[in-house]
């Protein structure tokens, strides 16, 4: 850490703040499990030191599980706003951890790259808002339909996502 450039230290600080902010947000939303929160804090420390490891992936999933199992269903504007902030913190955690392993840790990150990454993160954060808004608006509405068709649709969505993941795993076509 001592030989790391200032910009990389800032990136890792953002990783830590986003992860700790998520833990705090779950408590603010009325949930929180002390044992799991302690594990998340420890996991945050490891992820900050090794952002290239699988610890960051485990941390993201664990934050979501922590939120789902401990926080009550959001009701009212406050809890829904907290959920939106939580989604943004998950985004920040993922993006800052990705950025921390994109460049050599001892090299300063170019300003142009930081600006580009920041603008894209902002765009993704804004793209999350409609999903959040639809979720908040339809939370209390009972949609009519057949249960069997709902599960068929879910299965199709799963297959679609699986196919998308398989395509993402493939290396892009290389043409010289």
């Amino acid at each position, binding site marked *: 850490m001592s030989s790391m450039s200032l910009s990389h230290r800032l990136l890792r600080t953002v990783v830590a703040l986003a992860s700790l902010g998520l833990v705090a947000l779950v408590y603010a939303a009325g949930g929180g499990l002390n044992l799991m929160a302690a594990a998340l804090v420890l996991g945050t420390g490891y992820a900050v030191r090794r952002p290239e490891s699988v610890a960051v992936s485990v941390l*993201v999933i664990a934050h979501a599980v922590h939120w789902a199992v401990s926080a009550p269903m959001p009701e009212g504007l406050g809890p829904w706003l907290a959920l939106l902030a939580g989604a943004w913190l998950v985004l920040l955690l993922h993006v800052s951890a990705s950025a921390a392993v994109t460049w050599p840790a001892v090299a*300063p990150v170019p300003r142009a790259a930081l600006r580009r990454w920041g603008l*894209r993160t902002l765009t993704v*954060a804004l793209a999350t808002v409609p999903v959040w808004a639809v979720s908040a608006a339809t939370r209390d509405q009972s949609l009519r339909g057949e249960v069997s068709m709902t599960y068929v649709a879910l299965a199709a969505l799963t297959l679609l996502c699986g196919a998308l993941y398989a395509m*993402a795993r493939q*290396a892009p076509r290389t043409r010289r």
Partner: protein
Amino acid sequence: MTAPAAPTVPTVPAVPAADLRPVRATWRPTPAHTRATVAGLFLVVFGVMVRRPELLVLGTPLLVVSLWSFTSRPEREPVVAAGPRHLTLREGQATRWVAEVQPQRGAEDVGLALMGTPHTEFDPASRAVAASMDGTGPTSVAVACRSVRWGRRELGPAVLGISSAFGAYRWAPDVVASQPVTTVPLPDHFSARVPVPRPDGLVGQNRSHHPGDGGEFADIRQFRFGDRLRRVHWPVSIRTGQLHVTATHADQDSEVILLVDAMHDIGASQGVGGRSSSLDNSVRAAGAIAEHYLRTGDRVGLHVLGARELPALDSAAGRNHLRRVLDTLARATSADGTVADEKRLRGQLRHRVPAGALVIVLTPAISRDVLGHALALSRRGISVITIDTLPPELASGTIEPQLLETVLPQATESPEASSLAWRIRLLEREHEMLRAREAGVPIVPWSGPGTLDIVLRDLGRRSRAPRVVSR
């Protein structure tokens, strides 16, 4: 240690960017992309299935990042050329280790990190740089490398990586190796005003014993058929009534053979401006002597005694030969002290020395064989000069503990015994040098300009006197 001098630009032309070595690899998805895809899909699908909007909302940004990365992924391999811009440097000169990336859709960020190389200073000191590709032209990332010691070393190897949007795909070869860079020694300043004792070659600048065309007066003798009329000495001719001419000594070139003792490398080597080891002193002094004599038109040969895979350089003249000498010196490495090294040394000592050649032995006088060889050459009637290249700080009896470690690695375990052992070795060395001096081999410490003047004058005087030699 003095402050390092500012790096100078090499005088040799740089390798054109088009001639840098192409680097090949393929794009691969990164763990970050896998994380965004797997976690995003899991949270969204599971959230919908169990009707938990929190999971859906938390997973949405990850899924959006994954989709964005996937749709903007690069489709072709980038065209990358990398390597050092100069393959030959002089000590203290700097070059740049460059990676040039041609614009490529989807490729956005470039990072380059060089592994450390001995005797090389880097700028930036972290040896790592990063750049953002703007897509309009080639992107170049470079680390400046200043070589502070002679030798042949590979700069790097380097780790190079190019990333796509959100760091989702990465193009990264394992390591990028480059051709070794040869750092030729920066010769010390050297000049000799006294000519070589017995020049025996063709046209040169040294006065030989043979009569012929030259600038130095030898005699006034009777005219012989073939003498030039402008050589006629009229006052003597009128006085004696017979034609007399002025005879001169021929100006001839001489052959200088440099024997560099690489059997031992004693002392710490800190590069230009720092402490020098015995091999540093030998190599830089040999470079300086070769440069001086080659500039004055003499022929210079080079034998590096004890070095592996380094053929001897036959005597030749000219600027190109100076480059060959410096290049050979740059490849010199010290022997390991094994039996094979001693066998190789014995083979290297059986070299041809023509009559009239001046042999200059550069040695720390630790190897008895090398000093004995100088003595044997002297007994054969060959002019031999030995230059003592042992660093002065190591030649004294009271030696600093940290310096002693550079001579005897086990000095940390038993400093007193090591100090005593080194003093005994120095006494033996003094004794061997005294014997060599008494046998007629002059030994002088290396001191730059004028180092050889006094001994050359003595050798010149001695060469004109009658003596007994063993052939």
